Structure formats: structure tokens, C-alpha cells
């Protein structure tokens, strides 16, 4: 096993259908029209020397190393910027070219440190390679003249170093920041000899608007921009392709290793979700995997206030098996359950629901999708017949109008956001519907055509108003609706949305937006060409989350924006495997493949496979489990990879529910907040320590590959299997491939999925079966999966959570780029440098009325509870709205959120909480008590001395 070297063709592919024939060094070559000579040569097996060219960036033509001669043309044009032409005869090597290239290289090297042996890039340096390629043997210019050798390094960024002394000013970093990432944080400052790469307004990298995506580091052909881990460890010697464990984009990475040590994560060019791009989390924030807080031995304790005691796996698992048996004997079969996580692999989730159904004998299994995208499953299932997004990410390249609602892609899905921004810079139009002025509204060279800064909780009213305009102004794609949708249902819906009470003018004051904006946005969505809707948790986490998803589905059907590239409905999933967790049957009412537990035909499939009679009634959802615990009928819980005390709403209620249980088992990397209430801790494994698959937001099933052994000795799927065996189940899996084979054998949409296929083709999007052996990038092509698309009436029902004199502001919560979910991983990395605490965003007017200044401590009080944090005054939020993140347990934003939830799925209403904000001088009573409890409950007893 060695490093994985992707071929760099120098310039991007042309994409043209027309072909051109030419000769390169006498060889006949045929390539698409518009291809550069450099790329054509590479495809013919001829490598033209280059420095400023790389195929992730548009040709630039600055380094003058890739010169070629073309028969019949004068001069020596750059092969990167010169397109092929029919009949062209190109020579890539001649005496003149050799002299020119050597001269160019000699000048580069004359102002470059000759410290190759001690340079961190030694062995991975394109400048070094090109010096060899052009046969440079001497540098005639000494270093007495003006040079750049003494310049100071910029070490401000925790993950990479910028050494300007080694810079050849090829602009690859600047162009990567612009073209790939879309941040435009870098520039070439000065002219001629004074030219230099500068971040922001010539600040250090950390202080600039750089988002640390790593694109510049990856693009740099020298050691000018290089990972600190490579400086510290050295060059990697082998690599394994795997999938990022952060957000729902599901980027493919090369985990580049030296022995068993991870040197760096490099985005994989052939990864179909990310095409070689990355963000600060996936690229750099992997230090948690080896953090000192990792727990690597199983632990037990009798009381949650007592110290933990390290025990053997056998003792821990035996204890859980006995306790669960005792609880079921005492309190009934339904007194225990399990929670799986969107951070788990598909195979782990499949095993947990199998353990619950075939081992516990009930359906008490749920997943954290309950608190994020469960309304997506219900809403899209009702409208289209499949509980998933309709497109692949590549579809954005053919999109003319993006409608982004309740999503903040630049923070939560940054790699896909870069692709959105690229398409927007190419001319696509943008509608943003969000209470906050998210970065996408105004970002370099991108401005939203319309930002509908609606009042939190009014999504349904605004989407129905958009539909009103589309219907009443005759913008419906009637042909699509007549052929693809239930016509009677459409007519009832059209009559409903056409009512005057749904007009923009009627909705404007309720939503706090100008009626004209709503009308213009609706017209653009309906008439602007291929229109796609991208949405996130700002849609789902409401009491009408499901209705909002249905309203979105209605818009796409009414305008015929479904069933082809460039359009569709695209839920941006929060965590890496939200889609997969739902697919794998982790909801309490359905088996893998979204089949209800009461469906006897499906049940029989699993009964035959598992050799056990299965329960027919739905189990408890997460909030119901906690409620039942409070009632005294739910006593035992196995939680893998989830931290419900921090992530779920109404923290005090969650904590009380857990405290009422007799056996709480937490399987995780760290003693998280939920482990404060646990009796058993099972040490889990990181994504680097196990095999499996994740399914991203575009239904893409991607391989997770083990690059190092599990620190606890067992991968998570092995722990679940060991627990099942301790409970008397005869499970004998030896590799997750066997688990996926079982999924394929029982679940029609996965019938064609196997590790062999994934290893062969890279990844596939479900459905993958006999009808679609290599997967389905775009769904509902030709016809909607359920037969005829179903329009739902989307009557607006105001949230019960309303502002008043006591609680006059609306709190909405979300994420930030550098942190991930509850922060268990990212808080244990240098990402803390960007976000060391949660802050409350408050509008200047609201702050002034309360005497709150920037950085002041404020108390946020709701009906559920109160917390304190520091204020950030900004007009990014509208008057009357405040916003915070939930990444830090010290803040615990969810102490404030309430138990209001979606009508269909009980997805919590995180996005609407009525609060009051007031100045304070310290933590709340809850925070003080919680800190004391947390400190007391994490004590690990010293191991007894060896005899």
C-alpha cells in the first residue's frame, strides 16, 4: 500500500461534445473541443512541465514553463491557455523549449531557499520535480541580490504555515480561494518583484476572512503553504480513501498515514460529493481522534453520582445484559430501548435496530434524525413516495435559480456551499428565505436577488404565499402537473392557495416581509429556468416542520421543477449519516427501507432472516422514551454516538428522564453530557478506526475505511454485536460487508449495494437495484416514485410558542462553520480558535433597549429555563430575533428551548422559542448546578494497584 497519486491534467476538462484531432509529439490525439494542449498531452501520456497549472483551476498562463511549439505558428505559447485546434501539430520538447524552461526554472530557483533536504515538502514538491524535469543543473545567479529569502513565516493558523520565502507567486492559492472555495480571502499584493500573496487586508491568515478550507494548501506547488502536521511528522507513506464523519455533504478524503499515525486528510479528487474540495472540519479537525479525553476502557458504576470503575469488556457487557433482562422481567418487555446516531455508520445503525427488534423484542429504537430531519422523511414520503432528496450535488451546475430556505450552507455544508457560490458567480439567481442574513446573502461576487427575512415560525405562511402568486398569476406548469401529479389533489390545493388570505399582501405583516418581495421571489422561482430548493433545519425544526416540507414539495411539483438535473428538492442533512440512519430502520415505526412495522410482508422478511417473531406495534420516539421514564415505565437505554443532554430540547427534562432510568448505557468516544447520567460507558471508535458506509444528503453511499485499529479494541459494530451475544443472540458477523449484504437482501432500494460494488465504482446513490445497477443520481425521472405526486393543503398554524410581555423576543438556534453539532469532536481540536464559546446574536435596537453592550454577559430566559452567555450585537438578525449556537455544554442553549414539536414527527421546535434577554453578571442557577453535577459525575476511580 502506498500513497494515492491522482493524475493532474493541468487544466479542467472542457465538457464539449465536439471532438478535435491533432498530433502531439507525432502522436495522434482526439480530445473534446476546448481542451487545452496541456490536458490533451496528458491524455496522450505526455507530461508537459508546469507550475501554475492544476486541473482544479482555470488555466492562468503565468509560470511560462509549459511552453510548446505549434507547427505553423510563431512563438512558444503556453500549453495551459492554448486550446487544441483541428489538425494542430504540437511539439512539447525541442532545444528551444529546453533552453527556455531551464531559464525560467533558473530564475525561480535563484530566489528560492535551497534547503530541500530539511524542507517539509521534500519529496512532495512540484518545484523540486520541475527542476528535475527540465534538467536544471546550475543556478548562475547568486543570492547577493534582492530576494525574498528572509521573509517571516505566518504561523497564525493552527493547521498550516505560510512561508513567503518559498513562494513562487504562481497564484494557485489565490485562484483556489476564489474559484474552488469562493471566499476571495487571498490576493497578490504589489507588482513585479514586490508581488506577494496576502491574506485579507495584508493581515495574518487567522485574522483574515480565510475559512481554513485548505484549498490553498492543496493547490500550493511548493512548501509555501503546508500542513503543520507534515512539518511536525514528515511526509506520509500510505493512504486510504475514506469518508468524512462531519456534515451531510459526505466528502471523500485520502487519510494519508505514516505507519499508524494520521499525517493529514487530503480531499479526494475522485470523491463524487466533493470533487477534491474540503472544509476546515474535514480537512483539519481530526485531532479529537487522539485527544487525551478519549475513554478507551469500559466502565461501570452503581450510581450516577459515584465514580466510574474501569472493567473488562466481558464484565461491562455482562452487566448490561443482566440489567436489561432484569428490567424487562420487572417492568415489562417495553421498558428498555436504544438510540442510535447519525454519526454511526449504516451498518452500526442496522445492527442497533436489529438488536432492539430481535433482542429487546420491541420497537423502542430511535435516532437523532428525530430532532433534525424526521419531517423531511414524512413530508417527502407523502408527496413523492420516497423519504429523501431528489437530486445529486452535481445537479447544482445546471441550476438557474436557487431557493435556499432555513439553511446556512456556508457554515453547515461548506463544501457544497462552495459549489453553490461557483454556480451563482456563473449567473444563477438566488432567493434566500431566512430570519438571519446568512453569509450567502452577500458573499464575494454573490448577492441574493431576494432575501425574505421572515419572522421565525412563519415558513408555511410564506411558502403558501409563494404558491398563491404562482397559481393566481398563471405560472403553474400545467402539463407537468396533469401528467405527473394527482390532478384532483392539485385543484384542491390550487383553490386553497388562491384564497385571498394566502396572498403576499395578507401574509406580509404576519411574516414581517414586504409583499412585493414575496411576489418577485415567486415569479423568479417559477419562471427563472431550472429552479432548485435547498433547505435545512430552519424548515424542519418547527411545530409545522412537516407541513413546510410538504409546501416545498408542492412548489416543485406546481412549477415542474422535478425529475431532471438542475431542479428538485434538496434537504441538506445536518450530520454525516442522517440519510443513512433513516434508511436503516432506526425509527421506532419502520424497518430498513421505510416499511412500517405493521406491514406483515416486510415483517416476515426480517423474521425469516433473524429467526424470531417481531413486534407489530410502533415503539417510543426519543421524547416519548424520556416521558415514559418520567412515568416510571421506561427504565433502560442503550445510546450509541448521541449526546441527548446537550443536543435535545429542554435539557432539564432530558436530564430528569435519564435520571429516572435504572440502566443508561452510553457508547461514545468521550464522557459526554449524557454520560453524566449513565451507569455503563462503552468506549466507542472514531470513523478512522472502523469499516462501514455513510449515506450523504444526496443518497450517496460512500465507504468508510479503517486506517488505524480501534483504541478500545473493538469497532462500534463489534461492540453492538458483543452486547447482542451477551444477551443470547447468535450473531457472527466478521466484517461490516456482511451486514451490508444483509441490508441488500432485505431492502429493495439497497438490493444492488455491496462492498465489492462500492470498492469498484467508488460510491452509489440509492435506489441501487436491478433497475438501477449503478444507482440513481436524480429521482422521479419520467414519473414520480409514488405514481402521482400528491399536493397537500398547507394551512398555517401559528406556533404555540408566542412572544408576549414576559418573553418578547424569538430565539432561533443554529451552527457555525468551525464547530460541529454538540462540539464533542470539534471542541477537542484547534477549531476552538474560531469559536471558543456560544454567543447570543442580538440586534442593536434590542441590545440598546436592554442596556446590553458588545461582549456583555446576558441571561436568556424562556418558559423552559435560562442560561447565560455573552452578547454579540449585529444587524444580521432582525429586531425581535436573537440567535445562538449550541456547540458548548457550558452554555447549553437547549436549557432554553422547549418541548414544542412538529405535529407529525415530534421533531422539536428548536427554531422558535420566546425569550427575554437581560444583562447579568454570571451563570444561571442551572449552569452552576449543572457544572457541579458534571464535575462530580466524571470522576474515574484509580485502578487498584497490581499485587
Amino acid at each position, binding site marked *: 500500500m502506498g500513497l494515492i497519486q491522482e493524475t493532474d491534467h493541468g487544466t479542467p476538462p472542457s465538457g464539449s461534445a465536439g471532438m478535435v484531432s491533432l498530433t502531439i509529439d507525432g502522436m495522434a490525439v482526439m480530445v473534446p473541443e476546448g481542451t487545452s494542449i496541456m490536458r490533451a498531452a496528458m491524455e496522450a501520456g505526455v507530461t508537459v512541465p508546469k507550475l501554475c497549472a492544476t486541473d482544479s483551476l482555470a488555466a492562468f498562463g503565468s509560470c511560462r514553463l509549459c511552453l510548446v511549439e505549434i507547427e505553423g505558428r510563431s512563438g512558444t505559447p503556453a500549453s495551459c491557455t492554448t486550446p487544441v485546434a483541428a489538425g494542430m501539430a504540437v511539439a512539447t520538447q525541442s532545444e528551444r523549449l529546453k533552453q527556455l524552461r531551464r531559464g525560467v526554472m533558473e530564475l525561480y530557483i535563484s530566489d528560492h531557499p535551497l534547503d530541500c533536504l530539511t524542507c517539509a515538502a521534500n519529496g512532495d514538491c512540484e518545484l523540486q520535480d520541475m527542476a528535475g524535469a527540465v534538467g536544471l543543473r546550475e543556478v548562475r545567479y547568486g543570492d547577493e541580490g534582492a530576494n525574498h529569502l528572509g521573509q517571516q513565516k505566518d504561523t497564525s493558523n493552527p493547521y498550516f504555515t505560510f512561508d513567503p520565502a518559498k513562494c513562487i507567486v504562481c497564484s494557485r492559492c489565490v485562484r483556489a480561494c476564489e474559484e474552488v472555495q469562493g471566499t476571495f480571502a487571498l490576493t497578490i499584493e504589489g507588482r513585479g518583484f514586490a508581488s506577494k500573496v496576502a491574506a485579507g487586508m495584508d493581515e495574518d491568515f487567522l485574522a483574515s476572512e480565510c475559512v481554513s478550507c485548505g484549498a490553498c494548501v492543496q493547490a500550493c506547488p511548493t512548501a509555501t503553504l503546508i500542513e503543520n502536521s507534515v512539518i511536525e511528522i514528515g511526509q506520509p507513506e500510505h493512504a486510504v480513501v475514506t469518508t468524512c464523519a462531519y456534515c451531510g455533504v459526505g466528502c471523500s478524503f485520502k487519510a494519508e498515514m505514516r505507519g499508524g499515525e494520521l499525517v493529514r486528510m487530503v480531499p479526494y479528487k475522485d470523491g463524487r460529493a466533493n470533487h477534491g474540495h474540503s472544509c476546515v472540519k474535514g480537512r483539519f479537525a481530526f485531532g479529537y481522534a487522539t485527544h487525551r479525553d478519549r475513554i478507551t476502557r469500559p466502565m461501570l458504576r452503581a450510581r*450516577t*453520582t459515584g465514580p466510574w470503575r474501569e472493567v473488562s469488556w466481558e464484565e461491562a457487557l455482562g452487566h448490561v445484559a443482566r440489567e436489561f433482562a432484569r428490567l424487562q422481567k420487572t417492568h415489562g418487555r*417495553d421498558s428498555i430501548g436504544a438510540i442510535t446516531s447519525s454519526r454511526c455508520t449504516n451498518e452500526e445503525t442496522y445492527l442497533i435496530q436489529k438488536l432492539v427488534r430481535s433482542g429487546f423484542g420491541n*420497537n*423502542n429504537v430511535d435516532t437523532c434524525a428525530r430532532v433534525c430531519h*424526521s419531517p423531511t*422523511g*414524512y*413530508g417527502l*414520503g*407523502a408527496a413523492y413516495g420516497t*423519504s429523501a432528496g431528489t437530486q445529486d450535488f452535481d445537479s447544482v451546475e445546471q441550476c438557474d435559480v436557487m431557493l435556499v430556505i432555513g439553511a446556512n450552507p456556508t457554515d453547515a455544508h461548506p463544501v457544497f456551499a462552495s459549489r453553490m457560490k461557483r454556480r451563482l458567480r456563473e449567473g444563477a439567481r438566488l432567493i434566500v428565505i431566512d430570519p438571519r442574513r446568512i453569509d450567502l446573502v452577500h458573499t464575494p461576487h454573490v448577492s441574493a436577488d431576494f432575501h425574505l427575512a421572515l419572522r421565525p415560525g412563519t415558513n408555511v405562511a410564506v411558502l403558501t404565499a409563494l404558491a398563491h402568486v404562482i397559481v393566481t398569476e398563471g405560472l403553474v406548469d400545467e402539463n407537468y402537473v396533469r401528467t405527473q401529479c394527482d390532478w384532483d*389533489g392539485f385543484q384542491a390545493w390550487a383553490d386553497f392557495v388562491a384564497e385571498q388570505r394566502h396572498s403576499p399582501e395578507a401574509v406580509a405583516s404576519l411574516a414581517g416581509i414586504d409583499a412585493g418581495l414575496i411576489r418577485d421571489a415567486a415569479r423568479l422561482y417559477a419562471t427563472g429556468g431550472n429552479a432548485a430548493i435547498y433547505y435545512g433545519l430552519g424548515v424542519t425544526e418547527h*411545530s409545522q416542520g*412537516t*407541513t413546510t416540507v410538504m409546501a416545498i414539495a408542492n412548489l416543485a411539483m406546481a412549477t415542474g421543477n422535478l425529475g431532471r438535473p438542475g431542479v428538485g428538492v434538496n434537504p441538506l442533512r445536518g450530520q454525516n449519516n442522517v440519510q443513512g440512519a*433513516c434508511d436503516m430502520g432506526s425509527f*421506532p*415505526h419502520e424497518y430498513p427501507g*421505510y*416499511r*412500517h412495522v*405493521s*406491514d*406483515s410482508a416486510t415483517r416476515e422478511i426480517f423474521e425469516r432472516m433473524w429467526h424470531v417473531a417481531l413486534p*407489530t*406495534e*410502533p*415503539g*417510543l*420516539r426519543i*421524547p*416519548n422514551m424520556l*416521558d*415514559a421514564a*418520567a*412515568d*416510571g*415505565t421506561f427504565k433502560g437505554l442503550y445510546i450509541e454516538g448521541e449526546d441527548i443532554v446537550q443536543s435535545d430540547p*429542554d435539557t*432539564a*427534562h432530558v*436530564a*430528569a428522564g435519564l*435520571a429516572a432510568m435504572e440502566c443508561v448505557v452510553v457508547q461514545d468516544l468521550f464522557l459526554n453530557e449524557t454520560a453524566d447520567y449513565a451507569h455503563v460507558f462503552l468506549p466507542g471508535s472514531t470513523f478512522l478506526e472502523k469499516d462501514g458506509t455513510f449515506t450523504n444528503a444526496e443518497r450517496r453511499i460512500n465507504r468508510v475505511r479503517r486506517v488505524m485499529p480501534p483504541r478500545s479494541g473493538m469497532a462500534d459494530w463489534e461492540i453492538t454485536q458483543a452486547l447482542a451475544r451477551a444477551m443470547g443472540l447468535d450473531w457472527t458477523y466478521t466484517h461490516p460487508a456482511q451486514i451490508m449484504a444483509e441490508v441488500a437482501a432485505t431492502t429493495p432500494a439497497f438490493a444492488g449495494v455491496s462492498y465489492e460494488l462500492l470498492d469498484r465504482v467508488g460510491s452509489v446513490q440509492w435506489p441501487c437495484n436491478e433497475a438501477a445497477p449503478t444507482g440513481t443520481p436524480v429521482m422521479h425521472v419520467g414519473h414520480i416514485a409514488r405514481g402521482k405526486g400528491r399536493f397537500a*393543503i398547507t*394551512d398555517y*398554524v401559528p406556533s*404555540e410558542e408566542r412572544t408576549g410581555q414576559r418573553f418578547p423576543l424569538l430565539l432561533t438556534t443554529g451552527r457555525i462553520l468551525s464547530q460541529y453539532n454538540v462540539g464533542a469532536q470539534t471542541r477537542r481540536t484547534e477549531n476552538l480558535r474560531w469559536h471558543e464559546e456560544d454567543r447570543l446574536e442580538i440586534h442593536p435596537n434590542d441590545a440598546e433597549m436592554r442596556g446590553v453592550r458588545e461582549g456583555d454577559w446576558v441571561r436568556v430566559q424562556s418558559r*423552559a*429555563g435560562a442560561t447565560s452567555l455573552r452578547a454579540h450585537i449585529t444587524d444580521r438578525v432582525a429586531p425581535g430575533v436573537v440567535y445562538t449556537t449550541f456547540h458548548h455544554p457550558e452554555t447549553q442553549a437547549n436549557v432554553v428551548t422547549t*418541548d414544542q414539536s412538529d*405535529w*407529525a*414527527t*415530534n421533531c422539536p421546535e428548536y427554531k422558535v422559542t420566546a425569550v427575554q434577554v437581560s444583562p447579568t453578571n454570571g451563570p444561571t442557577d442551572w449552569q452552576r*448546578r*449543572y457544572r457541579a*453535577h458534571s464535575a462530580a*459525575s466524571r470522576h474515574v476511580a484509580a485502578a487498584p494497584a497490581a499485587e
Partner: protein
Amino acid sequence: MPRASPRLRGSMSPDKLVMMANQISRFFASQPGGQAARQVADHILRFWEPRMRAAMLVHFAAGGVGLDPVAREAVALLDHHDPAADLHTRPAAPSG
């Protein structure tokens, strides 16, 4: 340990179950077809664990205070539900 929430509720709390049933009813009551009570009952059968349904039936038997008319009609249908009947024989309900 921090004190339990003063608002600690159990899943069998009638207030909470009534609120959930009414929320479901408001959605289905707005749909065309005149099948709202049946659809609400189906939804509850599909997604509510038996303990929750049993608690709702107890509350219903005691007068069903707080239930809106459609929810009340739906709970009456639950009262006559045959637990052995396959739900999937009726029009499919989606996941969630």
C-alpha cells in the same frame, strides 16, 4: 444532580397527549376528502406507542377534556381498532 424540570411531564400526561392529538387533527382537518378522523386515527396507530394510545383512551373514557372535535372522533375510532389489523393495507403513510 441538577433539580428535575419543574415542568417534568410523562408521556401519559393527558395534557401533552391532547395537545399532540389536536396538532395532528388540525393538519388532517384541513385536507380534502372528508376523512380527517380516520386519517388522524391512522396516524396515531402508526406512530404512537401502545402506552400512549392506552393513556389517551383512558382520558377519552373520562370525558376527553381538551380534545377538539376531529381528535375526539379519531380517538373514538381508536377505541374500536383491531390491533391485529395490518395498517399497511390502508393507503401508505410516510415515514418520519
